């Protein structure tokens, strides 16, 4: 396992390749649909200190508040492709080094990863309880009232958050590769149907 801590340098991110298993530590910010729309349309400044060289996590957690202290109860990844229209612009304008999510992203994001030096990290979808254990502390939250719990920006500190690189800064995408391989199977199976 490769260990990386935010803020991550362009040099370090460019060493990663598809299939690498990584433990991410440091500041991670959750953002999903409402958040990405806001980052592109209004470019808020309050996230700069967390996102420069940082990581966005596509996640809408279950969050507990005990005596004023927040913590994640269950916090697996959400489907990343919904952020495809926004992600490239967010990478560029906030100097992101990566996104954590599930299901992979498209060509526009892959291009931005290659051009600006970023990676897409895949977490295990549905593994909400397991992943919540690697988030040690909630440092801040933005837009909680306006967006609601799942969509708010949760700024958290992670330790050895387990992920796999599935899109790297060399233009390689495991998702593209699997889609291509399964497309051949798909054509073969479709043409075999004779019932």
């Amino acid at each position, binding site marked *: 396992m490769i260990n990386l801590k935010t803020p991550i340098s362009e040099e370090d991110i460019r060493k990663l390749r598809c299939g690498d298993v990584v433990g991410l530590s440091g500041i991670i910010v959750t953002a999903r649909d409402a958040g990405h729309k806001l980052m592109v349309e209004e470019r808020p400044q309050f996230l700069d200190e967390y996102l420069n060289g940082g990581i966005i996590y596509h996640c809408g957690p279950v969050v507990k508040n005990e005596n004023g202290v927040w913590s994640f109860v269950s916090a697996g990844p959400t489907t990343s492709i919904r952020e495809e229209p926004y992600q490239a612009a967010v990478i560029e304008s906030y100097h992101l080094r990566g996104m954590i999510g599930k*299901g992979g992203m498209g060509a526009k994001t892959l291009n931005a990863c290659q051009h600006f030096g970023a990676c897409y990290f895949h977490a295990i979808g549905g593994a909400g*309880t397991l992943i919540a254990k690697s988030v040690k502390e909630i440092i801040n939250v933005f837009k909680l009232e306006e967006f609601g719990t799942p969509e708010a920006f949760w700024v958290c500190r992670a330790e050895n958050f387990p992920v796999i690189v599935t899109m790297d800064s060399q233009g390689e995408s495991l998702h593209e590769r699997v889609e291509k391989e399964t497309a051949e199977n798909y054509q073969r199976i479709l043409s075999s149907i004779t019932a």
Partner: protein
Amino acid sequence: MNQKLSEHIMGLIKSASTDLPPDVEQSLVDARDRELEGSMSFSAFDAILENTKMAREFTTPICQDTGSLLFYIDVPVGTDTDPLKRSIQIAADRATREYLLRPNAVDPITGKNSGNNIGLNAPYFHFHQWERDDFRFRLMLKGGGSENVGTQYKLPDAGLQAGRDLKGIKKCVIDAVFKAQGKGCAPGIIGVGIGGDRVSSYELSKEVLLRKFGERSEDPVLAEAEVELFNQLNALGIGPMGFGGKTTVLEVFCGKYHRHPATFFVTISYMCWACRRKTLILSKGDFDND
């Protein structure tokens, strides 16, 4: 509202959210053991199984997307269903406050999250009267990621060269699962609604997901199609999370409704690997003297 019934439903929600059914878990163990140790797909299944154990141990949600609450309720003839609804809503509100559910009811126009899973048509209720004098509450927690990859076909479909026959139906299912790739949290459980109108076809494709693993359709033709589709879909090679692998689906369940002569719908609902569904049977005496 009925306090005792609320307590029972609270227990049902807790069990559904945190304790994966044994047939689903066993199927995931079998899927892991088919993969090569050390491969990405093996590791994915390992993490899934570890997470399942931890969620049970700590009584925390298996997945943070605790889904939409879909209640399928069978009641004795003549039951007034409004008090049941209110008792269930109170349980949903409490389960949200106890972190067993994420607030998942959002107004589509204002964007406001109700904060307690209660809203217009949320939770969803499907009442059915039966000839028994007890009550059956079946709860499914259906996540949004898997819901987004569900789809409906209208036969004939020129692009797929799918006609109005079993062959055409199978092509639709294979196409839907191929297009979903790993995005619905593969491996999935595939519900297929055949016939009906647009609404009932979708409704059927979801209700079949309540079946236990291994429970084949009562219709012998559909039962055979389920087995055949299971093998064909796993031959796609999409694997857990779309990493590539031997298991793309854990189960395929088909159902059919008579259709209008002019229409032929094939509807696919995709359930993620975290197939959260639980059943509770109560007699009136379990909650009537509140």
